[in-house]
């Protein structure tokens, strides 16, 4: 049977593909384009999987188990297994790790087809510098990136022949280090005024208004530098509900920006939890940058399954990270005045009981990281647990809040 791309969820029909959302500009800074899918969905045609291996091939290929093995081909191209959140998060991130950058010359007309072929033969990304800039030259340079250790030579020649090139493109390999792009990425952050008198400022920046409440963030490799609409929506939510003395839970804390903001707004304690060790590193650093004490903002690494284990978490690469003892976290269930979860649609739906369960009866819960078109699903699920649901929107993103039913 053809792979089901779509998550088996609440849809009654077994769809092989869903339509994309219609495109709309998110903000002047970040437009996106995704066209709508085809008219209607595919009929739920379940095809028998018929795969015969030819006698000369290894018979292992013929088994229908192969269909379950997933993305063998593209996994090779992309090293997907290394990118699965649980494994890469567990392994930490090696900034000195090398990668290969290959600069290839080819004819302008071949750039597109060669790019696609390279992706099929091991390149993890292929970049074409703008063609118009190349002037009248027939040739153009494309840059493809490979994981360290890949056989670039065979990849380029396979791609060239697959693309139908009648020449061998000339290319040059150089080695880059991960920290190169991480450093470049850091440079993109600027101070952001989230609300009147509330700024999020990157660590190396100068607060434009020293009198304002400035949340200092070193984004690192975690999410939450202040500029994203979802971060702003959640910060606005906190501004509205924090009166002073609350216990706040930042569910999916990332850089810790929401927890830190809550404390600066007068909350008594903010707890940050995340499944990504990078987030724990980042949040722990950021709370110190803001003059806070770890007692004010305990940070926990939790497992990806819905119920955090009550056993100490075995993942602890650096001695600096607190050894996570989740017993304290477990015992805090049902005690929080405010819970904020800025993550993604699927975990919000799957973990609704976990998220809401941390709030005390009558506590306020806000969830974000969802697109406006995803709100109905979230509302449907969360209205079982929350009253007085309110939705706020910004640039195509949404935040839904409510109070935990007694």
């Amino acid at each position, binding site marked *: 049977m*053809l*792979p089901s*791309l*779509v*998550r088996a969820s609440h849809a009654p029909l077994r769809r*092989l*593909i869903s339509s*994309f959302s219609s*495109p*709309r500009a998110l903000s002047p800074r*970040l437009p996106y*384009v*995704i*066209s709508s899918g085809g008219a209607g969905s595919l009929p739920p045609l379940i*095809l028998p999987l*018929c*795969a*015969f291996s*030819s006698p000369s*091939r290894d018979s292992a*290929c013929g*088994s229908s188990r*192969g*269909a379950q*093995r997933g*993305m*063998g*081909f593209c996994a090779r*191209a*992309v*090293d*997907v297994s290394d*990118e*699965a*959140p649980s494994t*890469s998060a567990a392994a930490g991130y090696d900034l000195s790790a090398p990668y290969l*950058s290959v600069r290839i010359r080819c004819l302008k007309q071949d750039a597109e087809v060669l*790019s*696609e072929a390279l*992706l*099929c033969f091991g390149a*993890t*990304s292929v*970049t074409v510098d*703008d063609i118009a800039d190349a002037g009248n030259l027939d040739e153009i340079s494309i840059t493809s*990136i490979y*994981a360290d250790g890949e056989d670039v030579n065979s990849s380029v020649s396979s791609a060239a022949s697959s693309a139908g090139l009648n020449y061998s493109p000339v290319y040059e390999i150089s080695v880059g280090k991960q920290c*190169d*792009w*991480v450093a*470049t*990425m850091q*440079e*993109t952050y600027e101070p952001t005024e989230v609300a009147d008198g509330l700024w999020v400022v990157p660590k190396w920046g100068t607060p434009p208004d020293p009198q304002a409440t400035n949340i200092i963030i070193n984004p690192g*490799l975690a*999410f939450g530098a202040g500029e*994203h609409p979802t971060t702003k929506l959640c910060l606005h939510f906190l501004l509205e509900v924090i009166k002073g003395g609350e216990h706040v839970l930042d569910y999916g804390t990332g850089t810790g920006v929401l927890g830190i903001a809550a404390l600066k707004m007068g909350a008594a304690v903010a707890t940050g939890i995340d499944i990504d060790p990078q987030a724990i590193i980042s949040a722990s650093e950021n709370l110190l940058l803001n003059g806070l004490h770890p007692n004010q903002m305990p940070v926990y690494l939790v497992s990806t399954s819905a119920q955090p284990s009550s056993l100490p978490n075995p993942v602890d690469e650096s001695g600096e990270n607190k050894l996570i003892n989740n017993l304290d976290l477990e015992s805090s269930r049902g005690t929080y005045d405010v819970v904020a979860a800025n993550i993604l649609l*699927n975990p919000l739906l799957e973990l609704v009981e976990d998220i809401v369960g941390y709030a005390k009866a009558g506590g306020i819960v806000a969830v974000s*990281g969802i*697109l406006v078109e995803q709100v109905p699903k979230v509302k449907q699920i969360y209205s079982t647990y929350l009253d007085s649901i309110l939705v706020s929107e910004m640039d195509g993103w949404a935040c839904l809040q409510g109070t935990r039913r007694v």
Partner: protein
Amino acid sequence: MMAATLKDAAARKPVLATIRLIVPAGAARPAPPVGPALGFYRLNLMAFCKDFNARTQKYKADTPMQVTLTAYKDSTFEFVVKSPSVSWFLKKAAGIETASSRPGHSNVSSLTLRHVYEIAKLKQADPFCKHMSLEALCKSIIGTANSMGIEIVKDL
């Protein structure tokens, strides 16, 4: 629906680069392949990851989506998400992991026209493919299958 595209086309913002990559649905992270490819152009990696992940929630986690990103000279960017490559679909349908090393000489496996048709329907839903006829898509898919050593038969 097409307003955003047409408007941008009319505005003709100066393009810096076109970046193609394959990113697992719902799992974009500031790490390879996204990191080196986007970081080099000083694009907002986190915004891309958040955006891409939110938009690919409807797909099975880790499905390898093809992404084409246009980086503009003013540091903004747009991206288009397409379904996985035809070769990925063919491999999944055929239950194999690697294409034949000698296409045309030793075939790896066989698929039916029905499989091809189903894949064509999926592909027609991709951005920019709606104008292509199913027949044209099928032909292209059969061509790809042949180059992979996958035989297409009428029925099995």
